[in-house]
């Protein structure tokens, strides 16, 4: 059985520790991941900006990379959402690729989905003695339908005190190129998100999408606040090691 890592471009080049944590967690359950090097980026930045031809080029690297995989796992709800929700639209005119896209869709999972639904694991036996708040990212929840899974996992972490985030489901303002194209607007949105995070007085902000976390962490750091921002895979791995 071939279980492959879809690393996602951000967790390849900026946050490799996130992908590594995910790989190590799965390894503990005897699941050895393979890493097809053909993959680059899912193409979402171009797709969402309307540049579909450009998006197709990078999407094709993903389709090719996982052609022979039985399971594909990624540390991002947004990139998996891109495959599930947008690839069929992007390749709707190209029959052969569309066939491959449909196969890819079926076998691709976001990390928490894979743990909870495929492996049936919610309790990793982790301990993490901190006050934690969780930001549910928009694409994970709304495009992919990942809503309870992260909470299920967090609720089993010993010592972890989960503090509700006000207006949690409001977007952090990232939105890909939106963050630079409408930078003042995006800036106002992330400012408000950071305020709500700070109101929780949590020590750690956790999520399942590094793009959103990069945005919020960048804002918190800009304000000189040092609250730790991490991906759920990192938190869980830290909790078990």
């Amino acid at each position: 059985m071939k279980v492959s890592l879809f690393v996602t471009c951000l967790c390849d080049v900026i946050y490799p520790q996130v992908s590594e944590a995910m790989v190590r967690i799965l390894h503990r359950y005897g699941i050895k991941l393979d890493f097809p090097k053909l993959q680059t980026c899912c193409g979402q930045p171009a797709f969402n900006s309307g540049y579909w031809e450009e998006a197709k080029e990078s999407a094709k690297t993903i389709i090719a990379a996982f052609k022979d995989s039985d399971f594909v796992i990624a540390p991002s709800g947004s990139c998996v959402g891109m495959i599930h929700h947008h690839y069929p639209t992007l390749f709707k005119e190209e029959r052969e690729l569309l066939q491959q896209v449909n196969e890819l869709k079926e076998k691709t999972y976001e990390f928490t989905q894979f743990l909870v639904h495929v492996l049936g694991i919610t309790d990793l036996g982790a301990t993490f003695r901190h006050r934690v708040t969780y930001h549910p990212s928009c694409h994970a929840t709304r495009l992919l339908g990942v809503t309870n899974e992260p909470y299920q996992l967090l609720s089993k972490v010993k010592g972890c005190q989960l503090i509700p985030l006000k207006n949690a489901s409001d977007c952090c303002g990232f939105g890909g190129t939106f963050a630079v194209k409408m930078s003042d607007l995006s800036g106002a949105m992330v400012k408000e998100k950071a305020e709500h995070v700070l109101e929780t007085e949590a020590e750690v902000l956790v999520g399942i999408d590094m793009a959103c976390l990069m945005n919020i962490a960048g804002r918190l750091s800009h304000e000189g606040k040092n609250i730790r921002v991490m991906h759920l895979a990192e938190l869980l791995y830290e909790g078990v090691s």
Partner: protein
Amino acid sequence: MNEVQSENSLKDRVQVALNNEFLQNAVKFTTEKLRSGKQAATDQLGHWEEWRERGRQIRLHTIAHLDYYLSLFVDNLRAAGGIVHFASTAEEAVRISLKIMEAKQAKSVVKSKSMVSEEVELNHALIEKGIEVVETDLGEYIIQLANETPSHIIIPAIHRNRKQVAELFSKVAGEELPADTAVLAGFARSKLREKFLQADIGITGCNFAIAEAGSMVLFSNEGNARMVSTLPKTQITMMGMERIIPSWEDLEVMATLLPRAATGQDLTVYMSAINGPRRNDDLDGPEELHVIIIDNNRSSQLGDPEFQEVLNCIRCGACLNACPVYRHVGGHAYGWVYSGPIGAVITPILHKDKEKWGEIANASSLCGACYEACPVKIPLHDMLVYIRRNNVEKNRTKKLEKLGMNLFRKVTSNHRTFHLAVQAGQLGQKLIARKGKITSKIGPLKKWTAYRDAPVLAKRSFRESWDRLEKELNQEIPQDPNLQKRMQKILAERREKNESER
């Protein structure tokens, strides 16, 4: 309409809103109230997702057979004595209204809330002809006095507070009125009552038109729609051609969805059904009833697989309340009468100048909150991307953006170029990175760093460390047979499903 609003660019309008803290507080306060109201009402009702799906099916079916239901509606309305007009453009809708006014030698008009009349910019034309127009919905009355367009589909004056309203009303009253809701509402009521009694013509919108009966249904909370449609001798109802639903039974679903989605009410306070003009034994109602059915580019969406569903909209405003962008900038930033996600989608559809209006689709982070909020499940977040794609295809985007996307294609179309680009970045960032982050506000980065610090590229990308990691993890560890079994089972089910589909 207020010229200033639409003349400048999206960015300028957004800037104006972002600089107006008062506006933001007012919008946040009210939309949050509406959101939590909706949540409570839908929780209490239960099975909300099923209700949404029913609503969606009704709207899909109606729009797919719009020609049939529209003509059924028109036949039934005519049989009941209504006079039906078709307007293919906004200008034509205005012309038809003016003709009716002329024939009646009308000098004064009272209106209940109608977004489509805002769309065709009717008030402007009437005032030019010297006809007095008075908006009788409280929110509409406020923005009329302020000479503004609505900043929310159902709460037109959402951006104004009591104090500002008191100032506006004081001018009309010729005396200082206190910023007290009861006093202000009381003043408006007495002022409007005079107007109701004098008006030659009443103009209404239409929430739903029932095809099987030829009836029009109005939802209102203030009862003004009922006055507008009973007191004046002549009534004009303006409706977009997509306001149709097949039957009274369908209205039950819509009456369940709309008030809950809009304001969290279980029922709208007044629901009036209008079945033609006054009959002999009727106690009230207009002697003459004109209905103007407006196309204004709607029909061009029929048959379009990407945009047809936008005609399913029941104008509840839930997508505005849910939208994090609307929350920060309010409605006027969208530049026209429809705002929020639905406004960003229909504004370019209803205008000929796509270049100018297609730009609003950029004012979205594509978070999908609109879709989630919509009682008839319109995929607005996808439509916003379609508009962006159209902008790209029609060459309406900026040169710098095109260059950037071209670079993106070059870098990501192949893993080798991708790797090279990352290495170049790792080297290049040494010039600007300090303590593991980038704060400098230079070049294209400044759009990001103006509001947040930027992370640096990792010293070694994951792909660069993979071989080491793989080697380290290579020693066999026992596989959990249960997990293997689960995975095998999923694989087998998947294969079976694919076989049977083939």
